[in-house]
């Protein structure tokens, strides 16, 4: 069989873990209208912090500390742009560069760290039930539970006054200043929140793969953006925030499925980054290409009509 349940299962597991990064970009990119390029470094930071704490024997605490690390990273990015007027893209790049060294330091100046033999949230959850089916499906169940909590929190948060202020900040800066909201504050809170999700994602992937690698996050921002954009095609016309959030997760899982298919087609591993980039470019360009094709058809139909009218005369 070309696509087995196993492939879909793995795609969903990884897709759900990665969807946290996509949700992070949903907050920073879609809502705040800020391109946060510190995502790659922050993701690795979450993984590194998570791995170190997991090896220390606290896999659950690891998730929270990874989120805290993400918040710190987001705070620095935010302060650079709100207080010191560094352009948002540049602020992200600066933090991302700095994080490389920080991440190495967290991992004790080694470029990778194995957490084999340590308990992870996945192994703890699996141990709840000895049955074989549970053993194979438990990671997916755990991710669904975590995602459900995260979706609930994001949805709740965006409905509060602070959440509304953050949404307004990305939508109309002039209006926000006229409404007694300090855009510097809302941007800071938004970026901290977003990066907490990135950190959590990093910690989860570390525990899932039982390892942490300094180059783990490379290209993460592209993958997450692709997931976000694929997801947003589902919710373009919707005003429902919950659906918008869910569609980001769907986008991330879909992206993983597309990648799985590419892998099944025996794409050599060296070509994998190129394949990823092509998938991303296609995903982003597809809506526009569709418009172009529609416009072309409309033009041809109009020309035909013109010709037939001319013929009658």
């Amino acid at each position: 069989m070309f696509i087995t349940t196993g492939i879909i299962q793995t795609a969903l597991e990884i897709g759900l873990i990665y969807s946290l990064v996509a949700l992070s970009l949903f907050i920073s990119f879609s809502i705040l209208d800020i391109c946060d390029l510190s995502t790659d470094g922050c993701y690795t930071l979450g993984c590194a912090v998570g791995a170190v704490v997991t090896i220390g024997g606290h896999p659950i605490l690891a998730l929270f500390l990874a989120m805290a690390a993400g918040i710190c990273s987001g705070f620095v990015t935010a302060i650079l742009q709100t207080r010191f007027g560094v352009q948002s893209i540049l602020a992200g790049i600066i933090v991302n560069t700095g994080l490389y060294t920080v991440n190495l330091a967290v991992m004790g100046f080694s470029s990778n760290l194995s957490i084999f033999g340590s308990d992870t949230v996945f192994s703890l959850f699996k141990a709840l039930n000895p049955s074989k089916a549970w053993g194979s499906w438990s990671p997916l169940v755990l991710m669904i539970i975590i995602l459900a909590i995260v979706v609930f929190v994001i949805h709740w948060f965006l409905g509060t006054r602070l959440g509304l202020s953050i949404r307004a900040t990305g939508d109309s800066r002039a209006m926000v200043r006229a409404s007694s909201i300090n855009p510097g504050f809302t941007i800071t809170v938004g970026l901290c929140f977003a990066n907490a999700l990135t950190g959590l994602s990093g910690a989860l992937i570390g525990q899932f793969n039982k390892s942490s690698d300094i180059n783990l996050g490379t290209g993460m921002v592209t993958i997450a953006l692709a997931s976000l954009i694929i997801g947003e095609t589902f919710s373009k016309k919707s005003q429902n925030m919950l659906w918008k959030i869910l569609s980001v997760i769907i986008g991330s899982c879909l992206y993983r499925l597309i990648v799985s298919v590419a892998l099944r087609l025996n794409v050599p591993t060296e070509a994998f980054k190129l394949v990823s980039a092509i998938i991303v470019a296609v995903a982003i360009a597809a809506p526009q290409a569709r418009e172009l094709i529609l416009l072309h058809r409309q033009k041809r139909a109009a020309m035909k009509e013109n010709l037939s009218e001319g013929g009658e005369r």
Partner: protein
Amino acid sequence: MLQLVKISKTFNPGTVNEKKALVDLSLELQDGDFATIVGSNGAGKSTMFNAIAGSFYPDRGHVILDGEDITFVPEHMRSRYIGRLFQDPMLGTAPHMTIEENLSVAYLRAGTGRHAIFSRISAKEKKLFRETLAQLNMGLEDRMKNPVGLLSGGQRQALTLLMATVVTPKLLLLDEHTAALDPGTAAKVLDLTKRIVKERNITCLMVTHNMNQALELGNRTIMMDSGNIVFDVRDKEREGMTVEDLLRRFAEDTGDSFNNDRILLSTEGGV
């Protein structure tokens, strides 16, 4: 009461583009004053508004509102008590958020305590927003869940006006807020402005390029030129003044004729 004390602002000082936007500008506005401001382009009208609203800090001078020196209070803090409308109706609202969400963001100015940052819009507030919207007679009260981007420019400007006044401001700044609207809608938004300002006795400054409007609206007319006020007429003195009188006064006070096509053209029509 608003007091501007000898405010100066120079842009790009020391360069060829140096522009003295405000020069020792002083102005006192009593509570309940509704002053219209006229002046040619570059006279410093918007710069004065920016100084009052806190979009930048003046080089010299003080801004005093109700006895409190707010010269260096940041813009977002001032917007708690200063409402502002721009010429561009797109600036005052968030297009991708619903009417209800826009109003609740504006309602944040209501203050603290009960309105903690993690609280949600209450049913009582939704009712208040609905009643406020119903005043417009635009049917917006039935479209509270619609994104503001779907509204017309006039509707958006009317909504912005509601947002600026949903919590009664100490001062309302109107920067040609009807200039980008079609005549019918402009009249409607202007009527609404008059009504709200009168009902709540809001102190108000309004920039306009329509000379008739400048004389008919409010109780005071201020003319600006080269970063300062060239004349300021109110109540009795203003009654019976015609557009011609206004232009003559301008020529006498500045030794220059009025050279703004937009104003001269708009003297023809009514309000």
